[in-house]
Structure formats: structure tokens, C-alpha cells
């Protein structure tokens, strides 16, 4: 991981490297220049020394010729050696521009030594006159040497003029380089520092913003930090936390939704029960009365009336008992038949009812009092207003994973608006008009939806003038949890 610490180290090392490079090159350059200076100075010093030594030698020779002492001789010999040594050194100074002068110079020194030697030999062979002459000559040569030294140094100065200028120019260049380098490094460092601080502060800022959003309760904003350091780690953890919180909240919301739905179904049940209860005193009385009437009719030999009364009583009982329970399709169909019997007695020939039932499907469970309100609806809308009566088809079919129950009539049909109103469960459009159980279609739709735990439990097909067809889907495999909840309450 490219951590902040690493970045700081990198910066420090880079700066250190740059400084080291500059320091080293400056030192190298200074050393080089120093060497050159020393070299040049050395030449001057050696030449100067040579001149002094030659003069010394001549002086010693002079002393020796006046009073020959061993001391002077020794002195002379030593300065001779010295001169020889320096001569070697001087001969190393040779270059293309002073080679002639230098050769002359070295030869002059040779001549001087030869002359001095000659003088000493003359002296030992007691040719004092010749010795003095040689001394005279040596003096001359010594003078020439000093003169030549000056000339040589002069030449050196001229020769090295360009070199000196070069050195001066170079130190000026170096100064300039220093200034440019300083500017460049300052600029780069500023840039790097800006970038570096941005790298640290920007993620922190993002994190801060994200935190404040979180604190305001917005959990759906993704936290994105595009760096690779510790901040990114922090952000990832933060993002993880946000995700968790978000998931928890949505879970809670879902639960709340479920709760709400349950509450609603409860309310609907209550509503149905209330409506039932409203007519509870009467029903019991009615029920008993109906039974009495039925027996009476039977005894009086009116069996048809008696049967009809039994049907009414059965229907009434079913309505009162099984509103909040799930019943089998079989029970429902029975109740439906009783209802149709009653209605047939009412409408006689005007009502034609056809059934088409797959017996194997009758064991399936279905909320109580669902089919009767639908058929009742068909009777109210398709048969009642029509003077010629109407036909109602009732079909139960097995469709693999589900059982469909179809109720079709040939009445005036429904407009699309009406269908939408019925399907939209929020709309309380029910009018209790003419319903035996007092339960409207909307109520049925809602209960079916709750029962099945999904929305598409009912379809209504129909246009104005071409009859209506209501299809109910009952899934064989109901979702267990919802079933539990639905039945437990």
C-alpha cells in the first residue's frame, strides 16, 4: 500500500538526493579548480625558486673563488643538486606554446651549471684568471635566467589567459546554474507539496462530507475515495458501515411494510365482522325464524319453499361463521350453489347458470366468502337490470401451478375505468348495494391478495356491452410464511 508515510519518505529522499548531487558536483568542481590553481601556482613557485637558487649558486661561487672553503663548495653542490631537481620539474611544464622558450630555459640552466663547474675546475688548477672569467660568465647567465624566468611567467600568463577566463566564466555559469536550480527545485517542491497535501486532504474532505450526509440520514450515497493510502482504507470501512446500515434500514422498512399490510387485512376483517355483527341480532332471529318457516312449509306440503328457506338459512349461517377462515373451494362452491338456488327462485327463467368444474381442484383452500360476492356482483349487474335475464358461467380449471376460477356473464360489461378502480385497492368505491353478505368486490380482491401474498390474483376482462369475465388465480403452492401470518390472526 502506498501509504502517507511512504510518500513523506519519498519526498525527503528525493530532496536529499538532489541536495547531495548538487553538493557533490560543486565539491568535485571546486576540487578540480583548486587542482588547476595549485598546478599553475606551483609552476610559478618552482621557476622563481630556480632563479633564486641560481643566484645563490653564483654568490657561493664568488665566495669560493675569493676564499676557497669546503663550506662554500658544499653549499654550491647542494644548490646545484637543487637546481638539477627543479630543472627536471620545470621540464615537465613543457607544452606546445612554451616549448621553445622552456627548452632554451633548461639549456640556460645547463650552461650555468657547466660554467660553474668550469670555473671550479679552473680554480683547482690554479687558473684564477680563467676562473674569474667563468664566474663573470656565470653571473651573466644567472641574470639571463632571471630574465628568462620573467619572460616564461609572462608567457604562461598569456597562455593561460583563456584558461583563466574559462574558469571565471565557469564560476559565473555555476552561479547561474545555482539560481536556476534553486528556482526549479522550489517550484517543483511547491507543486509536489500542493499535490501531496491535496492527496491527503481531499479524501479527508470527501470522508467528512460523507460523514455529514450520513449524520443527516442519507444512507444511499456511495462513498468513493480514489487513493491508495490509509484514508482509502478508512473510507472503505466507512463505506462498509454505510452499506450495513443501509441494508438494516431497508430490512426494517420491509418489515414495517409487512406489518402495515397485516394491519390492513386485520382492519378489513374487522370491517367485515362489524358489518356482519350489525346484522347479528337479526340473523339469529332470522335464522331461527327461517328454520321454523321451513318446517312449517314442509308440513304444509310446500317442499320447494321449505328447500329455499333451508338454502337461505345455510347461506346465512355460512356468512356468519366463516368470514375469517379459509375454506376449501368445495365449501365455497356449495355456498355458491345455495345462493344460486335462492336467486333462481327469485329470477326463475331469467337467470341461467352454467357450471364447469374440475372436481380434482375442489380441495384447494381459498378465503371464505370470495366466490359468492363475485357471482352476486354478476347477478346484480348482468341479470337484475336486464328484463330478459342473463347467463352466468362458472368454471373451475386446473392450470398446473394454480387453479383458476372464472365467473363470466353476458351483461352490459364494465368500462376500463371501472375495472381499474376495482383493481386499485386504495379506492373505496364499494357501495353495499344489494349484496347479501354486505361484502363488495374490492374487499374480495384485497383479501385474495393478502391471502395469496401477491398482486396478480384477479383479472377482470370486459368491455362495455360485451359482458364481464372475472378470473381468480389460486396458487397451489402458497408462500408459507404469509400463509402462517394470514391464518394466525
Amino acid at each position, binding site marked *: 500500500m502506498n501509504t502517507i508515510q511512504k510518500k513523506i519518505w519519498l519526498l525527503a529522499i528525493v530532496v536529499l538526493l538532489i541536495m547531495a548531487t548538487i553538493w557533490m558536483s560543486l565539491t568535485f568542481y571546486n576540487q578540480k579548480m583548486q587542482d*588547476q590553481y595549485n598546478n599553475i601556482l606551483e609552476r610559478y613557485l618552482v621557476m622563481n625558486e630556480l632563479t633564486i637558487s641560481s643566484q645563490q649558486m653564483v654568490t657561493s661561487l664568488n665566495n669560493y673563488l675569493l676564499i676557497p672553503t669546503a663550506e662554500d663548495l658544499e653549499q654550491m653542490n647542494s644548490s646545484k643538486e637543487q637546481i638539477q631537481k627543479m630543472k627536471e620539474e620545470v621540464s615537465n611544464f613543457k*607544452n606546445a606554446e*612554451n616549448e*621553445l622558450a622552456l627548452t632554451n*630555459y633548461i639549456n640556460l640552466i645547463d*650552461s650555468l651549471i657547466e660554467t660553474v663547474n668550469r670555473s671550479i675546475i679552473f680554480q683547482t688548477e690554479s687558473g684564477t684568471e680563467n676562473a674569474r672569467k667563468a664566474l663573470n660568465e656565470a653571473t651573466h647567465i644567472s641574470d639571463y635566467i632571471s*630574465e628568462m624566468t620573467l619572460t616564461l611567467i609572462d608567457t604562461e600568463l598569456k597562455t593561460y589567459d583563456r584558461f583563466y577566463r574559462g574558469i571565471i*566564466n565557469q564560476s559565473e555559469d555555476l552561479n547561474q*546554474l545555482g539560481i536556476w*536550480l534553486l528556482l526549479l527545485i522550489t517550484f517543483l517542491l511547491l507543486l509536489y507539496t500542493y499535490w501531496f497535501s491535496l492527496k491527503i486532504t481531499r479524501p479527508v474532505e470527501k470522508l467528512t462530507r460523507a460523514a455529514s450526509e450520513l449524520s443527516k440520514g442519507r444512507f444511499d450515497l456511495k462513498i468513493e475515495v480514489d487513493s491508495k493510502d490509509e484514508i482509502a482504507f478508512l473510507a472503505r470501512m466507512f463505506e462498509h458501515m454505510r452499506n450495513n446500515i443501509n441494508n438494516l434500514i431497508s430490512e426494517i422498512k420491509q418489515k414495517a411494510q409487512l406489518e402495515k399490510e397485516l394491519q390492513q387485512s386485520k382492519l378489513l376483517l374487522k370491517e367485515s365482522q362489524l358489518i356482519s355483527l350489525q346484522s347479528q341480532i337479526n340473523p339469529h332471529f332470522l335464522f331461527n325464524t327461517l328454520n321454523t318457516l321451513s318446517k312449517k312449509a314442509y308440513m304444509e306440503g310446500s317442499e320447494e319453499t321449505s328447500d329455499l328457506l333451508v338454502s337461505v338459512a345455510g347461506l346465512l349461517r355460512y356468512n356468519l361463521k366463516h368470514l375469517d377462515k379459509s375454506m376449501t373451494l368445495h365449501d365455497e362452491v356449495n355456498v355458491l350453489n345455495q345462493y344460486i338456488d335462492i336467486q333462481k327462485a327469485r329470477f326463475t327463467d331469467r337467470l341461467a347458470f352454467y357450471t364447469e368444474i374440475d372436481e380434482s381442484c375442489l380441495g384447494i383452500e381459498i378465503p371464505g366468502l370470495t366466490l359468492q360476492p363475485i357471482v352476486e356482483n354478476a347477478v346484480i349487474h348482468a341479470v337484475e337490470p336486464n328484463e330478459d335475464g342473463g347467463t352466468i358461467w362458472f368454471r373451475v380449471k386446473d392450470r398446473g401451478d394454480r387453479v383458476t376460477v372464472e365467473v363470466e356473464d353476458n351483461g352490459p360489461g364494465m368500462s376500463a375505468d371501472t375495472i381499474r378502480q376495482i383493481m386499485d385497492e386504495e379506492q373505496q368505491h364499494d357501495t353495499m348495494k344489494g349484496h347479501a353478505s354486505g361484502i363488495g368486490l374490492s374487499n374480495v380482491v384485497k383479501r385474495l391478495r393478502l391471502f395469496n401474498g401477491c398482486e396478480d390474483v384477479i383479472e377482470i376482462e370486459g368491455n362495455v356491452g360485451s359482458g364481464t369475465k372475472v378470473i381468480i388465480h389460486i396458487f397451489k403452492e402458497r408462500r408459507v410464511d404469509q400463509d402462517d401470518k394470514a391464518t394466525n390472526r
Partner: protein
Amino acid sequence: MRNMITFVIVIICAVLFYFTIDSALDAYRTNWQLPKESEQELTNRLVLITQELDTPFWDKVSAGAREQAEKEGATLEVWGSYENNQENFLKQIEIAIYSKVDGIIIQGLDTGEFKEILKVKAASYGIPIITVANDVPSSESLRKTYVGSNQYLAGELIAKQIVTDMGTTGEVILMLDSRQEFYQNQRLQGIQDYLKDYPNIQLIEAKTEDSREQGIALTKDLLNRYPNVEAFIAVNANFTEDIIEEIERRSKVEPFHLYSFDDSRASLALLKQGKLDGMIEQSPNEMGQKSVNLMMKWLNNDTVPLDLDGYLTDIRMVKALDVQ
């Protein structure tokens, strides 16, 4: 705006980088021009010594000598003194001898000291000497040979010209250096020998020291003493300027017949101005070349011995009319 800032930063970076690298290259490019190392040992070190450095005549001599030295693979140095400074001149010769050069080419000087140095020191160091332009007799200097003009012939040429220009009668003043150098005597000899046949031409020899004041003073004196003089010959060319200056101070130069030699600084300029009627032109370039050539021959033992009488170079008369 952001793009702008980025652009500016990039530009600044580029500029800074450019100047830094540029100055770094400047600073670390070692352009210290150290003199080259000398590779080979010096052989054939020759020295040309003259008393009259920086005169047109001697410039040509040294140019020729240098040219030849380069051709022959020898190294040549030109030493000397200015304005006939004899003391310095002699010192240079001594230094050359003590420096053990391989050969000395020298302007002859007809003095005892000069001959002494040549005879004793140069001989004892075994250094060959060739005189150039001005000669000293070999018997007195032990020179190997002489390269230069035949001064006797030069004298004759001038005399001939005077006869042509002035006619066979008249007074002619000969300006001589009191040192009576060998070459001057040769010239004088040439003039005298030629004019012997013209008894009506009267030769007046005037001698003084070779210096400006003396030259002017002598001319003044001569003009006073010989008002009828018609011609001047500067046997020592250095007097040419003095004569003309003094004459100009009194009258016009044109009526006088003035003759000189080219081994003086002013001669050529005066000839061009028409103040000088004629000048003996020598071949300084050839002298330089020839002398180095002969010295190399001697050093390489190609021609031993050299002709003691000398190797003569061309001379000719140049008249003012030719130059103009």
C-alpha cells in the same frame, strides 16, 4: 480555468527545466583551454636575431625564414632589439648561445664585441652562425656563410642611377654612419668605384652617429656648407627620413636627387610620396628562406662546407616613377 492553470504550470516547468539544463551544460562543459602537450623533442631550434625588429624589411626576412622553417621541419624563433639597440642585441645573441640553440641566423654587426661573441662563445658552444642581410667578414666572425644582397653591386647601381638622373657633373653627398660597418663600406666602395670615371661628380662623404638628432644636424650643416648640392645618397638608409625632413624645412624636395636603400622603415613610404627618387630594393623574403635552407643543409651535413663568400640575393633599382 483549471486547464489554464495546468497549462501555465507546464509552461513554467518547461522553461525552468530548459534554463537549468542549459546552464548545467554550460557549467559542466569543460572548456578550459589548456595548452596542448608538446609531443616530440625539439630538434633544429633556429633563432633569427636582428637589431631592427618590426621594420618592413625585417618582417619580410622573418616571414620568409618562418615559411622555410616550417617546410624543413625546424622551429624558428625571431629575437632581436628595436631601433638598433646594440646592447640588447648582443645580449640576445649571448642568450641564444647559452640556450644551446642548433643554429643562429643573424644580422651582421661590424663591431668588436659582436665579432668577439661570435668568435669565442658561439664557436666554443659549437653553434653555426649565418649572417643575413648585413655581412661581417668570415675571417673576423667565423660565420659559416652570408645570405643577402651584394652591397658593392648595390652601390654601383645607385651610382649608375645618379649619373643617369643628374648627369655627369654635380655635388653628391653621401650620408654615412660613423660606425663604418662592413656592408656600408661595401656600398660606399661600389659607389666610389663606379663614379671614379666621372671626375666632374664631386663626392662629399659625411659621417655621423646613427641617431635622429645627429642625422638632422648633419644635414643642416651640409646644406649650409654646400648650397649647390644636387644629390643625396643615404648609404645608411636610416638617414633618409632625416635628410628629407631637413630639406623640406628649407625648400622643396623635388629639385634634389635623393637615393636610399630599402632596409629602413621610412624608405618605401617616402618613395611612394615621390620625395625619394630611387631606392635599392633587396629581396628580404628570399634572404630569410635561403638562410634557413642553408642552415638546415649545414645541420644535416648536406652541404659542407657552405660557400664562405656567401649566397647573394637579387637587388634592383626602384624609381619613384615606377611606384607611382
